C-alpha cells in the first residue's frame, strides 16, 4: 500500500493548455468545450479544445485573410520561413518526441526518429518553394509570334484533414506542401492524438509564419469535416485523414468544385522525397500570352 499521507510537494508543475490556433492567436473553442486526450495505453494526457462548426468558419475567414499576403511573398521568402519552422521544431524536439511516443505508443528512440523525419520534411519543402516554378512552369513554343509562359499559382484556401495514424510526421507531410506553394490552410488534427498538432502550432507561431496561414482545429472529425468540405470559401480539400467519410466529403466538396486529394495519395509518410506529388494538386496553372513585334 502506498503511503497516502499528504505531503507538500517541492514544486508543482505548470501544465500546458492545448488550444486552437486561429489567425495567429491561441483561442479556446468558441463553444467552450474540450475533450480528454489519452495516450495509446489509455492514460489521460490533457484536455484538448473541442472545436465547433463556428470555429471552422472562423478558421476559413482567417485563412482567406492571410492568403494575399502569404501568396504574395517571394518564393524565396516562403522557403526561408519554412526553414525557420524546422529550426523552431528542432528547439522543441523533446516535447514533440514525448507527445509522439505517448500518442503512438512507441519507444523514445523511435519517436525521436519520427521527429527528425518531420523536421527534415520542412527542410525538404523549404527547398521546393523557389523551385516549383522551374519544375512545373514552362515557356510554351506556340506557333506564332507570341511569348507564352505558364506558371503555377497557389489555389487558395485549403482544408486539410490530417492523417489519423501519424499525428506528427503525417501531419507535416500533408501540411507543408500546401503552404509551400503559397496556399493557406485550415487543418483538422487527428481526433484521437491532436497534441502534436497543437505543439506544432506553437512552433509555427514563433517561425515568422504570418498568422492565419495555418489554422489548427482539434475536435471531432465528424463534426468539423463536413462544414469544411462544404464551405464555399475553401478551394481545395486534402482528405488524408477522412477515413470512411471520404466519399461523402468529396460529394460536399463538389458543390464548389474544390480540388480534392483522396486518401491514399503518397501516404507513405516516411518517404523522404515525395517530389511535387502533394504540391501539384494545390496549384493552378496560369498561362500568359503576349505578342512579339516592333
Amino acid at each position, binding site marked *: 500500500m502506498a503511503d497516502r499521507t499528504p505531503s507538500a510537494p517541492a514544486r508543482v508543475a505548470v501544465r500546458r493548455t492545448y488550444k486552437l490556433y486561429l489567425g495567429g492567436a491561441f483561442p479556446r473553442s468558441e463553444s467552450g468545450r474540450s475533450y480528454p486526450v489519452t495516450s495509446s495505453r489509455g492514460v489521460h494526457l490533457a484536455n484538448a479544445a473541442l472545436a465547433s462548426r463556428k470555429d471552422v468558419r472562423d478558421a476559413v475567414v482567417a485563412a482567406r485573410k492571410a492568403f494575399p499576403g502569404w501568396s504574395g511573398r517571394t*518564393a*524565396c521568402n516562403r*522557403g*526561408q520561413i519554412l*526553414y525557420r519552422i524546422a529550426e523552431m521544431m528542432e528547439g522543441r524536439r523533446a516535447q514533440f518526441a514525448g507527445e509522439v511516443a505517448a500518442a503512438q505508443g512507441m519507444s523514445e528512440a523511435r519517436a525521436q526518429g519520427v521527429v527528425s523525419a518531420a523536421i*527534415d520534411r520542412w*527542410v*525538404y519543402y*523549404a*527547398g*521546393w*518553394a*523557389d*523551385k516549383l*516554378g*522551374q*519544375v512545373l512552369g514552362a515557356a510554351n513554343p506556340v506557333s506564332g*509570334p507570341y*511569348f507564352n509562359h505558364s506558371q503555377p499559382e497557389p489555389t487558395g484556401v485549403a482544408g486539410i484533414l490530417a492523417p489519423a495514424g501519424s499525428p506528427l510526421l503525417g501531419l507535416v507531410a500533408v501540411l507543408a506542401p500546401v503552404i509551400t506553394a503559397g496556399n493557406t490552410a485550415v487543418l483538422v488534427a487527428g481526433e484521437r492524438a491532436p497534441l502534436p498538432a497543437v505543439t506544432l502550432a506553437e512552433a509555427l507561431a514563433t517561425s515568422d509564419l504570418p498568422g492565419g496561414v495555418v489554422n489548427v482545429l482539434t475536435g471531432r472529425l465528424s463534426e468539423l469535416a463536413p462544414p469544411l468540405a462544404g464551405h464555399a470559401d475553401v478551394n481545395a480539400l486534402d482528405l488524408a485523414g477522412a477515413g470512411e467519410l471520404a466519399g461523402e466529403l468529396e460529394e460536399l466538396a463538389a458543390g464548389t468544385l474544390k480540388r480534392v486529394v483522396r486518401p491514399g495519395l503518397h501516404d507513405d509518410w516516411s518517404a*523522404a*522525397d515525395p*517530389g*511535387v506529388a502533394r504540391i501539384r494538386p494545390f496549384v493552378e496553372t496560369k498561362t500568359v500570352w*503576349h*505578342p*512579339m*513585334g*516592333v
Partner: protein
Amino acid sequence: MEIFDYAPAPESRSIVTIRPAYDLFIDGEFTEAKSDERIVTLNPADEEPLSEVAAASDADVDRAFAAARRAFERVWSPLPGAERGKYLFRIARIIQERARELAVLESLDNGKPIKETRDIDLPLVAAHFFYHAGWADKLAHAGVGPSPRPLGVAAQVIPWNFPLLMLAWKVAPALATGNTVVLKPAETTPLTALAFAEICQEAELPPGVVNIVTGAGGTGRAVVAHPDADKVAFTGSTGVGKEIARAVAGTSKRLTLELGGKGANIVYDDAAVDQAVEGIVSGIFFNQGHVCCAGSRLLVQESIAEELLTRLRARIERLRLGDPLDKNTDIGAINSAAQLARIRELAAAGEAEGASGWSPACPIPERGYWFPPTVFTGVTQAHRIAREEIFGPVLSVLTFRTPEEAVAKANNTQYGLSAGVWTEKGSRMLWTASRLRAGVVWSNTFNVFDPASPFGGYKESGYGREGGRHGLEAYLG
C-alpha cells in the same frame, strides 16, 4: 556651395578582424604553403596593405586535389542529398549572421561601395547557398535525367569583381550536386574567400569538401590544368578563358566559362526616360563598371538622344565617388593599379580615335586607384571603346534609327553576355529580346541577379549557365 553638404557616414571597420597573414585552406584546416612566396593584398582605396596570403605552389595544389578527391569518395558523394543540403543551409545561415562583417571585408579588399556589398553582394551570396541547399535532395526533379551523378572534383577559378558572390556561384551548385571543390580566389581579393573557409569550419563541413588555394596566375594555371580535376569552372577574361579551353581540349574534363562582355543597352524613343537614365547609370557604373555583364554600349534612338544624354549627364553629376566604406558612396575604388592602367589606356584610345569623352567635375581622392565616371559620345562601331571590354566606369554611346539597326549594332560584337531593352511597348521588347544574341536580356531594368535565374553568355562570353535549374547541369553527369 551646396545648400546641404554630405557628412561622411562611414561604416565601421571594427566589425572585421583581418589577420596579418593567411595560410591555404586544405582538408578543413589552414595549412602552411610549401612555397615561401607571399602575396600582399591592398585596400585599393588607400593602397595600404590589408594582409598577406600564400601563393600556392604546384605541390600545394596537389595536396588540395588529394583532399578534395578523398572527401568526394569517402564523405561527400555517399552522403544523402538531404544531409548535404543541411550543410549548405547552415552555411547560408552563417553568412546571413555574419553579413555585415563580410560586407565590410569585401569593400576593404575590393574597393566597391559598402552600399553594394551590404545590399547586393551579401544578400545574394546567402540566397545562392539557400537556393542550392534546396536542390541537393531534389536533383532527380531538375530535368537532367532520373538519377544524376556528381562529376567529382571541381577546379574553380574566380575573379576579383564580386569575390564572395562569384565564390557562391561556384561553390554552392558544386556542393549541392555532390562535387567537392578546389577554388582559387583572385590574387587581389582573397580575403572573403578565406573568411568563407572559416565559415566552412564553423558549419562543420567535412574536411576536404571545400579547399581554397590563394595565389596568382601560376596557381590558377595549376588548378585548372590539374590532372585530377573532373570539371573546370572559370569566371574571368575571354583571353584566359580561351587558354583554359585549349588546356582542357582532348581531356575528359567538363568545362564552363563565364567570360567578358560588351553589353548593349538599347533605349527606344518610347522609353520612360527617367527610368532609362537610372538603368543606364546602374548598368555601367554599378561596381565601378567592373561587371562582365555591364551595359557598356548605350544604343539610343536618334530622336531622343539629345534629351536622354542631357538627363544622363545631370544624373551622373550627382554620383558620389570616394571612400568605399561611406554609406553615401556610389562609385568606389578601381580594384588594382593594373586595372586602372587598362581603363586609362582604353579611355585614351577613345579620345585618340575621335570619340569625345565627358566626366563630371568630381573630386578624386589623393591616394588609391580611382577613375571618374566617363561618357563617350561620337563613338562608332569601329572604335576600340565600342569593341573591347573596358571593365571600368566608361560608357560608349552610339545611336540608331530603326529597331533592326539597334539589333544589328547590339549583336555586332564577339561577346554575347547581356543586353538591355528600354521601351514601354511589350511587343517591341519581346521582338528585340528574341533577336539579341545574349544570354541575359534585361528589360526596363539592368544588372539584377537572382539565384533562381540562369546567367551566362553566348559566343565568346563563354558557355554554361550559373544559377537556376539550368546551372545544375554544369556539375552533373
